[in-house]
């Protein structure tokens, strides 16, 4: 498979799957403001995914559009990070995952602004503005919960213990990623580790959370299509309409 296509597809899958997860909160958030905030964040991510899928389809050149890429691929062909497919868990779990991921993507999109792929650079310029809001919003909640009640702090610690193993996958480099660095299309994500750690730990200190930025985890495989059990359920929900009524249009 073409490395460029694969690379853009990975990025699209990350945004779509997390966007879908966060959209599951719609109507269930703990307060009205969050019921507006979470779907807004999901919309940003799904909007980014749409642009990325369209671009991936153009690179592939087989006439696949955003809908076919999103709705008609089986689980093994999805290339997203495992951290984005994890179930939402409670509110602390949702916010900590968003904080970890958005903090990474803020660094990633910054590097992508100078990509030799002009479409990706254009998407980065839009996405960076949005992801800054996601970082700020999730970081505020991490601080509020970590430095809040015993229960909120315990829930945040539990979320950390569940998510820590999934963070290193964000920084992993493989042949596809190295090809993209060589072509000037994508950044070396290993070089983002220190900035990410510094950012996460600064917020952890404010949150009084006695944990370190997790950079030695060991869960990976999403980029190769090896997903957790929850991914099948997620896609069953996401793809239901096109699977049941193939070719259905608005």
């Amino acid at each position, binding site marked *: 498979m073409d490395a460029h296509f694969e690379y853009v597809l990975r990025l699209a899958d990350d945004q779509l799957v997390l*966007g879908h997860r966060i959209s599951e909160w719609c109507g269930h958030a703990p307060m009205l*403001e969050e019921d*507006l*905030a979470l779907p*807004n*964040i*999901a*919309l*940003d*991510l*799904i*909007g*980014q995914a*749409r*642009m990325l899928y369209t671009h991936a389809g153009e690179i592939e050149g087989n006439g696949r559009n955003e809908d076919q890429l999103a709705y008609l691929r089986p689980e093994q062909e999805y290339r997203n990070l495992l951290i984005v497919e994890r179930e939402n868990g409670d509110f602390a779990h949702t916010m900590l995952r968003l904080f970890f991921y958005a903090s990474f993507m803020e660094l990633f999109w910054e590097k992508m602004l100078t990509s030799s792929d*002009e479409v990706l*650079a*254009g*998407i980065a*310029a*839009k*996405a960076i*503005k*949005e992801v800054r*809001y996601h970082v*700020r*919003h999730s970081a505020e909640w991490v601080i509020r919960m970590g430095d809040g009640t015993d229960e909120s702090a315990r829930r945040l610690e539990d979320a950390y213990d569940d998510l820590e193993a999934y963070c290193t996958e964000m920084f992993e480099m493989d042949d596809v990623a190295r090809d993209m660095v060589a072509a000037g299309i994508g950044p070396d994500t290993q070089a983002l580790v220190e900035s990410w750690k510094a950012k996460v730990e600064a917020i952890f200190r404010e949150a009084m959370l006695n944990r370190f930025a997790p950079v030695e985890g060991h869960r990976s495989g999403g980029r190769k299509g090896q997903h957790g059990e929850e991914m099948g359920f997620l896609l069953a929900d996401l793809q239901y309409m096109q699977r049941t009524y193939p070719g259905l249009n608005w």
Partner: protein
Amino acid sequence: MGEEARHQAGPALEAVRQRAWEVAASVEDPEIPVLTIADIGILRSVDIDDEGRAVAKLTPTYSGCPATLAIELATEAALRDAGFEPVIERVISPAWSTDWITEEGRRKLSDYGIAPPVSGSNSKMALFGETIVACPRCGSENTRKVSEFGSTPCKAHYQCKACAEPFDYFKCI
């Protein structure tokens, strides 16, 4: 119109282009109907191509803004109703910024009860890095942010501590 425009050049073509711009520029934003798409700055350009078609370039505010498609369809319809053969192009680069909202647009927003995006470097409280947003009703700067995310992706939710008015703030991006 396509046939007619194809054979025009120079000042005549410019007059056609200007008319196409005025038609497209009059399209209202479905979420904030007090503003036109030219006021918000999402209508980037209208040109007449070699085949006499009116090519309107639009840029979305936020990636996932649900109004994007509705705005494109409305612009297409407006141009068609005015006798043009429309072509709508979505451009994402350079990325839309709240700086592109026109002065007229900012005034209309404020009259409508939505605080326009803060511009200029003196808008930050030096000590706290907080943005000061003035209440669109009473003008007081004694306001608080209720939520970073408001009724649409481009707005945040604020409340005035002086007059108690809850209001939307058009976020600065």
